[in-house]
């Protein structure tokens, strides 16, 4: 009797959770309950970071500081050029009467050292609705697209990686502009491009960038690099395998992106990456996105 009720309840829950998205609230409440456990598990990791940060010698810090300063200088030099290019791009686009692509705003978050379900590629991050994170938000690391936010709690959220077998991302071959879809395979260093015809122009080494179609991921971020492209005339489609450029299993810091849709109010000051944007700015974008 009780078993029947429990089984029925679970089956109902699973169906609703799988097919519809009405359970986000319930999941958010439950995630509050289990968040202490996740923090506790992450504690040795973040603790060792803290200890190594506090105990580093002054000398090492000075060296690191100098190095970072140098890096910053280099990046700023590049940025100067970039802003000129951006202005030029805007002018050209105005000539073509197409909408201007505005730069995206980002927020840095950290992965909690927590293992989730081994059969899904997900990670837990330490930002949630309190910081304006919303479901479906794209997540990047320094070298490429990592995935998107799948569930949000108040202080934490889970991110589904692009290599999860149930994940697909619209991409474009950077060299030729060919559009296709990259599907996760379940192994952390392979993406599949299952729908390319045999005569498609694609080579080993081609960079795949996000195409921005579908409206979920911002366009022009690197996604993967083709490592195998075989066309067998006996098969309907070419077998193309790509390797994600993002370090899916190594990054600790990742970037949450609020991409500006063209119909949102134009941003006057576009100075590239705004770190630590106020949460209400994120919520604004959330409303326009949905």
């Amino acid at each position, binding site marked *: 009797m009780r078993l029947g009720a429990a089984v029925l309840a679970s089956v109902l829950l699973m169906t609703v959770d799988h097919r519809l998205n009405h359970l986000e609230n319930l999941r958010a409440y439950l995630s509050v309950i289990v968040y202490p456990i996740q923090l506790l598990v992450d504690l040795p990791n973040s603790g060792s970071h803290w200890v190594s940060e506090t105990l580093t010698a002054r000398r090492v810090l000075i060296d690191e500081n100098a190095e970072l300063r140098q890096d910053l200088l280099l990046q700023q030099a590049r940025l100067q050029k970039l802003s000129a290019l951006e202005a030029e791009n805007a002018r050209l686009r105005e000539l073509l009467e197409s909408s201007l692509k505005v730069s995206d705003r980002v927020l840095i978050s950290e992965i909690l050292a927590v293992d989730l379900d081994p059969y899904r590629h997900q990670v*837990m991050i330490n930002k949630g609705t309190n910081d304006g994170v919303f479901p479906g938000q794209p997540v990047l690391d320094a070298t490429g697209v990592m995935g998107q936010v799948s569930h949000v709690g108040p202080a934490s959220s889970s991110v589904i990686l692009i290599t999860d077998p149930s994940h697909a991302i619209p991409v474009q071959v950077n060299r030729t502009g060919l559009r296709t879809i990259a599907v996760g395979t379940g192994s952390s260093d392979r993406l599949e491009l299952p729908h390319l015809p045999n005569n498609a122009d694609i080579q080993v080494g081609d960079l795949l960038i996000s195409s921005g179609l579908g409206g979920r991921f911002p366009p022009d971020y690197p996604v993967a690099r083709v490592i195998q492209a075989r066309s067998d005339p006996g098969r309907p489609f070419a077998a193309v395998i790509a390797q994600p450029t993002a370090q899916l299993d190594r990054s600790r810091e990742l970037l949450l992106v609020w991409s500006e849709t063209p119909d949102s109010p134009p941003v006057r000051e576009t100075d590239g990456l705004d770190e630590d944007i106020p949460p209400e700015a994120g919520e604004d974008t959330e409303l326009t996105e949905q």
Partner: protein
Amino acid sequence: MKASRWTAFWVISSSFCAAMVLTVIPLPDTLRALRPEWVALVLIYWCLAVPQRVGIGSAWVAGLLTDALTGTLLGQHALGFAVLAYVILKLHRRVRLFPLPQQIPVVLVLLTIYQLLNLWILGISGAAPSHGLAWLQPVIGALLWPIVFLALRAGRRRFKLR
């Protein structure tokens, strides 16, 4: 002397919390698929030892929390744990009398049933694992059963739970 309701609640829920910590503690990628289902082991112990306190209801709640913790479909662990609790409640009078080595095969069977349900649900929702390592997981869980049993029995005797 019998422990109060509250002590029992705290002892049992803290053991479940410890199991959940073990469930999400980071492991190398190769070992992740082999991680035993700690929460299921703890659940089996409490259902065997104090079936009047831990039953299908508590199993279901523990499963739901595990679902939220590991990011699976809500209800996936809950269903497995509820079925697990039901089977143990049917068997507990017999299994309790078994010596510890003899309990291992029983636990193996229970964990295999649980894993089967789990894989069915994963398969239906389109995330079936591509390798057979998943079937090794119940074996490892069963081999770890004596440790779980002895640790939890020590805890239970200390707090005089009955």
